[in-house]
């Protein structure tokens, strides 16, 4: 009976030695400055236009959105989206709170909001897709399985190592984004109030439950939701990695699923049963921000349940297949 700990340690060492994690850090270090620069330019342009007064800018945004509502050529879903946006912005304006107070923290909040459904899952995949299939591609799996350890323990140690790196990836995405954008926008802003609790029914927003939280609390909640999504994606990628012999194939399968998700969220509102697909449910932070869900009838408990079921099934499949299958090769 060999305890799990050395196995997990071994797996972590492999992930670090393969430099996957450094690649992820490198991607973040290259892309975040680009996003920061883009954001800086657009902030500069707005400052010229609105003489650095966010209230003028926000009121103009509200008016522009109201105007586009009167055009009969805009699809109804967009109008719903805009009506909700207008009401929320009006709420910020009425309470004299700048929803986009420029700071490194706000940038991080927006960056994380935009990366939950594709960017961070992609980073997770970089580690997860390789974790089992990589051993088979190189043939080291035979070495691993000839040791006097039960197969499920081998797989479990891989799973735990993967989940450890999921947390590390989210942590580093947060840190890199905050540290780099802080250079441009300043490091303060943790206590700026953010409104949450907008409850949507149709195209009206129920404001009765709206409350303000300091931005650091909002970020904590956001990261928590991202963590849940990432764990689910990691478990799915893990299953795919068990099922496919080559790392390339397993990356392509997961990528296709994720990208299909972003396409579907943009156009599937008419096909309601698409809401049972995991990739449509990845945008959990939308519930926090009060943006309408891509398909009517989706709520946070619903999305959590769907994601939970997908994750559970993929864990069961991974273990069932891995413990039973003959390793030829």
């Amino acid at each position, binding site marked *: 009976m060999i305890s799990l700990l050395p196995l997990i*340690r071994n797996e*972590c*060492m492999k992930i*670090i030695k393969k430099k996957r994690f450094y690649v992820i850090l490198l991607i973040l270090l290259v892309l975040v400055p680009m996003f920061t620069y883009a954001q800086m330019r657009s902030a500069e342009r707005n400052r010229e236009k609105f*003489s650095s*007064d966010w*209230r*003028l800018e*926000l*009121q*103009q945004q*509200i*008016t522009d959105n*109201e*105007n586009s509502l*009167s*055009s*009969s*050529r805009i699809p109804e879903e967009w109008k719903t989206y805009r009506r909700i946006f207008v009401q929320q912005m*009006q709420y910020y*304006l*009425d*309470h*004299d*709170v700048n929803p986009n107070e420029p700071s490194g923290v706000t940038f991080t909040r927006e960056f994380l909001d935009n990366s939950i459904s594709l960017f961070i899952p992609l980073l997770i995949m970089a580690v997860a897709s390789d974790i089992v299939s990589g051993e088979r591609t190189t043939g080291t799996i035979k070495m691993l399985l000839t040791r006097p350890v039960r197969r499920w323990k081998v797989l479990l140690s891989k799973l735990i190592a993967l*989940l*450890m*790196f999921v*947390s*590390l990836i*989210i*942590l580093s995405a947060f840190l890199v984004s905050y540290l780099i954008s802080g250079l441009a926008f300043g490091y303060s802003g943790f206590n700026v*109030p953010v409104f*949450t*609790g907008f*409850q949507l029914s149709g195209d009206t927003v129920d404001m*009765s*439950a*709206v*409350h*303000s*939280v300091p931005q650091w*609390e909002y970020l*904590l*909640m*956001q*990261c*928590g*939701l*991202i*963590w*849940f999504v990432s764990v689910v994606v990691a478990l799915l990628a893990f299953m795919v990695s068990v099922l496919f012999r080559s790392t390339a194939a397993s990356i392509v399968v997961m990528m296709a699923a994720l990208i299909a998700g972003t396409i579907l969220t943009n156009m599937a509102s008419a096909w309601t049963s698409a809401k049972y697909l995991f990739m449509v449910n990845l945008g959990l932070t939308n*519930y*926090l921000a009060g943006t309408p869900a891509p398909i009517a009838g989706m709520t*946070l*408990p619903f999305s*959590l349940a769907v994601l939970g079921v997908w994750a559970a099934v993929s864990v069961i499949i991974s273990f069932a297949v891995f413990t039973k299958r003959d390793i030829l090769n």
Partner: protein
Amino acid sequence: MNDFKWTWRGASLLSITATLLLLIGFVYAAKDIIYPRGAAHFTETPQSTAAPAAGTDVLKVAAVGDSLAKGTGDNTGEGFVRRTVAGLSTDGMKAELIGNLGINGLTTTGLEDKLKEEGVQYVLRQANIILVSIGGNDLFDGAQSMLNEASEGTVPEGGASDSAGTPGMSTRAAGGRDELKNLDPKRLIADLPSVSNRLESILGSISRINPSAKIYYIGLYNPFGDLREMLIPGNQAVTAWNDAAMDIINRNMDMTLVPTLDLFNGHLDKYLSSDHFHPNGDGYQRMADRVVQAVR
């Protein structure tokens, strides 16, 4: 190997801490979204978003009102508001646009409600020149929306003739024309007292919101003057309206009426856009020139 021992210890410790933190965040978020505690409200009302611009060598222009303020029909999207700002910025004067809050289809009732919004008031408070265009939709209520719908579908083709500046009578949407026959000039004038009361309250509240600003009200023109049966009744209705507006404005020091009826009468084919209701770019330019003359 010893080197790795520390990496492993650091990584595992960091990862466990991060996981716990993220787990807390997740539970907190789920709880907050599913059972939002709405009580912890911001009770502080917006402090009077003060500081109306004191040093006034710069003209700060804000516009409120309907589609004319917005600039509907102008291919460049500028409308008379931006053109006015451009016109005011020449000759060493400085003018900037604070905000254009024109909304398509806005009526006097709608504008009364808008003026109660804190954000709108804030924009008006920052300005020292306020352009107001309102009333057209009250007066030509049914006709305009019918025309808009008739032209919505034909805009792509209409755009070409619009830029040429000569949309002939024959291109007018048939549907729009039929509707116009239902436009009873008597009814237009019947609504006048109540609408002009609302105009008075609108202009009054604007000058209460910003007592130091100059207010320019854009008079109406008759967009249906090219239809024989609508020329005279339309002119009468528009003139009656403009008179009522003038009456209100004459009683206030800081208000000016900028007439536009004469700019368009007889030249509708040149200065109206393809929807036969809104001015085109040239039409807006003529309006803007008027406003600039009034401001200076």
